């Protein structure tokens, strides 16, 4: 039976990770209780399939157990760090060789048909987000927003994002930075915090 609830519930995140480094299984169970919902959410959004998301989610927590020293509490928040770990692993999954192969096969099969346009994919990704997230993203310039949505939620590299949007790579780089900085300002202004 699941027995992770109740372990060191009052400990701070850095205290928990320090306890994980000491080999305290209950501490990693408590980290799981606090943040597996967020880790799972990002893995599922980016991977798009349950089995890969499960692999990603398990790997993130097993990795925290194996190498807790990789989290530096001076640098950032545990939740953000775990979400970033999960995102990186999920992106690895979608960019795996299998995915490349499938894309090539599809391109060969559908050569005369134009590829799906980035704005359709961005619109469908955006549509799947929570209201408050969509509201924040909608306050960005549409070009900046689409670049961020395709890269972060679609798991596309900035080069792929540029191709999907039919924009120069340098332009997309600027849009991503401008959009991300804008998002930080908006979230800060609205007092949205972790």
């Amino acid at each position, binding site marked *: 039976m699941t027995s992770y609830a109740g372990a060191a519930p009052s400990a701070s995140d850095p205290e928990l990770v320090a306890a994980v480094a000491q080999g305290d299984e209950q501490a990693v169970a408590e980290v799981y209780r606090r943040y597996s919902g967020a880790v799972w959410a990002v893995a599922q959004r980016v991977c798009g399939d349950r089995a890969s998301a499960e692999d990603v989610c398990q790997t993130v927590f097993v990795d925290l157990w194996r190498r807790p020293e990789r989290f530096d509490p001076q640098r950032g928040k545990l939740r*953000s760090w775990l979400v970033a770990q999960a995102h990186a692993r999920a992106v690895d999954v979608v960019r795996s060789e299998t995915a490349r192969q499938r894309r090539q096969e599809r391109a060969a099969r559908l050569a005369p048909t134009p590829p799906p346009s980035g704005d359709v994919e961005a619109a469908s990704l955006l*549509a799947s987000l929570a209201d408050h997230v969509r509201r924040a993203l909608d306050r960005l310039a549409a070009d900046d927003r689409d670049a961020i949505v395709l890269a972060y939620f679609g798991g596309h590299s900035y080069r792929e994002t540029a191709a999907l949007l039919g924009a120069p790579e340098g332009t997309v780089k600027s849009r991503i930075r401008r959009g991300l900085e804008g998002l930080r300002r908006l979230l800060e202004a609205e007092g949205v915090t972790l």
Partner: protein
Amino acid sequence: MSPVIGRQRSERHPLDDLAIYALDALEGDEAEEVEVHVAVCASCRQELAAHEDALGLLIEDGPPPALWEAVQSQIRADEAAPLNGTPLHPVGPGPARLDQSAGRRGMRRRLALLAAAAAVVAVVGVGVGTRLGNDGNGSGSLAGVSIDGPTVAVLADAHGADVARVVTNDDGDVLVLEKLPPLVSERSYQLWSVDGPRPVSLGLVGDGRDEAVPLSLPASTSKLAISDEPAGGSATPTGPIVASGAIVRPA
């Protein structure tokens, strides 16, 4: 000096690349250059953490997934058979260190990921086998619904692979779920029009075991998406978008 938010690009701080790195949208040498810089630049580490905090706010907490027992099995297996014969968790805190080779996208991490994935397969192998065993059982479900006729929409998954299409014939429009995997019980695929600012539900389209679903698409619909939802459906998409594409009607 801190690379604060601003328009000017500093020679010393690769701020464009840092933002793209935070989105995991930088690859290869470009990603490594950022990792090397971040390893030696405290202000860029801080900037990256601030980006990650903002991105983390885009992710909503869901309920914990039912994976704890699999995680627990793995960490107990680690304790029983420590890597390299050395204890995994020595007594006393180790020094905090920034291990460049174990950066988020570093080769060592990829290898660790593969090893961990192999271990996951070992732990949940029975579950995976069961899932695969249920696959490919959709034949015969096309009975009564023709899937002939011109294709008016192709829906692709996040990898760009075609997984579903819409054909039009005497039965009206028919959604053909060619390659969407069967869902676990109590989940269903739901079709959405994503033309406007908010997605509009076009109904539940089965759990991936029925391959052809007759539709009545509003004439105004031109962009479709399919998401993975609880069996009763949702008012707005809550699960991952598994396919999307545009409708192109013949003139």
